[in-house]
């Protein structure tokens, strides 16, 4: 590998990796569910921008949303790997060039993302703020330029030691950590659908849940239940996922009605179960998980028992919100029956089939390795 091509090589490899994972993500029934959700989301957005009242509150909310777009995708990537500062010690100019190119790349990408987000908000801006296309275009360009500048400032700050004054020394270790964190966030998204190898988990104690972990684990009398419940809570990605989808469902329950509401809730519930599936084979690389004298039936039961309370809470929240919003007993019964029946099929049959398939694949792969 020519060192002058370091940036090109790394960017090509990264996008190859992302595209590979994307192919897996959109390779299940999930793609259909996501399309339906995107369609429903688009319709809901159209209805919102056409019917939103024009007053100080809605204007303020829109301005807050525009400001929030700055929070997302503001961090730069640097493509520095752990081995670089040691392996390329003899020629640091290569790394400095890589850093410079990566910063320009981040500025462009973050600017494009900001542009897309703002263009998506244009209909609301026209409806609530102004009719002038020129004014909106100028604001958009200014905001994109600010985002690019913000990315540059963050990138420049990241490379220096915190107490450095006039020093040209670059804080490589900090850059490596920053890049690992950046990659962790991106790969965590893929990890919600598929197993991404080599992803280091972020663990938080979550002391508030200690008693729940103990009680729920003991109640099931299955050693793996405690393990799954603990992983669900302490590997924050799963709690966050559950929280996010519960909120999406609550919004769908509040803003829609009739069969559209029921179908949306079912799709969101399906996505929730689907994205929780990686938890079932989270520990497959740990030899003890295979060695413990536990039957495959116990493994499946433990997983189902671990996710069940969270899913029941989600369904309850959705049903209550939908009922408060519509006060329709018929719709409540319709939602209740559909969610319980389809939820039961997903939790007890779908997960069983998926775990059995993945266990079989794992055994075959181990024997053929």
């Amino acid at each position, binding site marked *: 590998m020519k060192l002058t091509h370091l940036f090109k090589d790394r960017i090509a490899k990264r996008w190859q990796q992302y595209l590979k994972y994307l192919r897996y993500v959109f390779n299940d029934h999930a793609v259909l569910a996501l399309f339906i959700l995107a369609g429903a989301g688009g319709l809901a957005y159209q209805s919102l921008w056409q019917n939103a009242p024009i007053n100080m509150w809605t204007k303020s909310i829109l301005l807050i949303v525009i400001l929030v777009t700055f929070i997302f995708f503001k961090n730069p990537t640097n493509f520095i790997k752990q081995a670089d500062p040691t392996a390329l010690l003899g020629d640091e100019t290569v790394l400095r060039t890589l850093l410079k190119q990566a910063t320009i790349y981040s500025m462009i990408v973050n600017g494009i993302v900001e542009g897309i987000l703002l263009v998506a908000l244009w209909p609301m801006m026209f409806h609530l703020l102004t009719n002038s296309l020129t004014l909106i275009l100028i604001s958009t360009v200014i905001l994109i330029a600010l985002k690019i500048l913000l990315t540059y400032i963050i990138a420049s700050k990241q490379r220096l030691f915190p107490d450095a004054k006039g020093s040209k020394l670059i804080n490589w270790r900090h850059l490596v950590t920053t890049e690992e964190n950046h990659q962790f966030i991106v790969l965590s998204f893929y990890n919600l659908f598929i197993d991404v190898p080599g992803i280091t988990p972020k*663990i938080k104690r979550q002391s508030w849940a200690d008693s729940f972990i103990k009680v729920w684990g003991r109640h099931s009398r299955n050693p793996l239940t405690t*393990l799954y419940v*603990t992983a669900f809570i*302490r*590997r924050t990605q799963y709690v966050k996922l559950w929280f996010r989808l519960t909120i999406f469902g609550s919004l769908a329950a509040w803003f829609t009605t009739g069969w559209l509401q029921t179908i949306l809730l079912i799709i969101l519930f399906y996505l929730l179960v689907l994205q929780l599936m990686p938890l079932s084979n989270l520990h497959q690389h740990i*030899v003890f998980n295979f*060695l*413990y*004298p536990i039957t495959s039936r116990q493994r499946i039961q433990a997983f189902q028992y671990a996710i069940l309370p969270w899913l029941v809470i989600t369904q309850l929240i959705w049903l209550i919100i939908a009922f408060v919003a519509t006060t329709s007993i018929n719709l409540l019964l319709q939602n209740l029956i559909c969610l319980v029946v389809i939820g039961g099929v997903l939790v007890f049959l779908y997960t069983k089939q998926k775990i059995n398939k993945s266990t079989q694949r794992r055994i075959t792969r181990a024997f053929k390795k």
Partner: protein
Amino acid sequence: MSLEIKNLSGGYGKLTVLKDISFTVPDGTLTALVGLNGSGKSTTINHIIGLLQPKQGSIILNNLLLNQEPVTYKSQLAYIPEQPVVYEELTLKEHLELTIAAYHLDEKIAWQRAEELLNTFRLNDKLTWFPTHFSKGMRQKVMIVMAFITDAKLFIIDEPFLGLDVIAVNDLLKLIDSRKKEGTSFLLTTHVLDTIAGHADQFVYLKDGEVAAAGAASEFTKLVPELAVSKE
């Protein structure tokens, strides 16, 4: 007889690593599985613990065959891997709780054992620690404690001394000796017999996936001069 390996051939996919190997690990003994890198030691272990399926031959543990009674077979086995593997989201205490539950151990007895072991390996004040705070040596000690709180009849230990300090190595050897007296068997892989000389009862020397020599540990130097010479 604790473990009996008869005419075992196996490997990965089409690649055959082990060629017709046979040996036994009698009750209450320590058998050293010796060999250079790539000789087939880890492959043998992977077959015994069921991570690989034999192409030919059989592995019998206390009259049990892995593919016929996997749960009972595994309940008689404890394993300490060469590279410590831990559950990142569990504290040390929770690792032990999981092992106690998985092996259906009597909680009171198991915790008594655990306390002694934690004291021995100076881990007693680290029960609430997560693995991220452990050094490699400490992780290895966690593996040892997890294995030794079980009632397993056979311990399989893969290169146990890597990453352990001298005191921990001596403590582990003392533990092995005391459990041997209770009838527990040990199969331990190592590059050389040096560290476990005086503790091993017999050895099996693997070379290119075949049993090149086997016998009493005291005869090692005589039967495997190439390793003895290279050591010097």
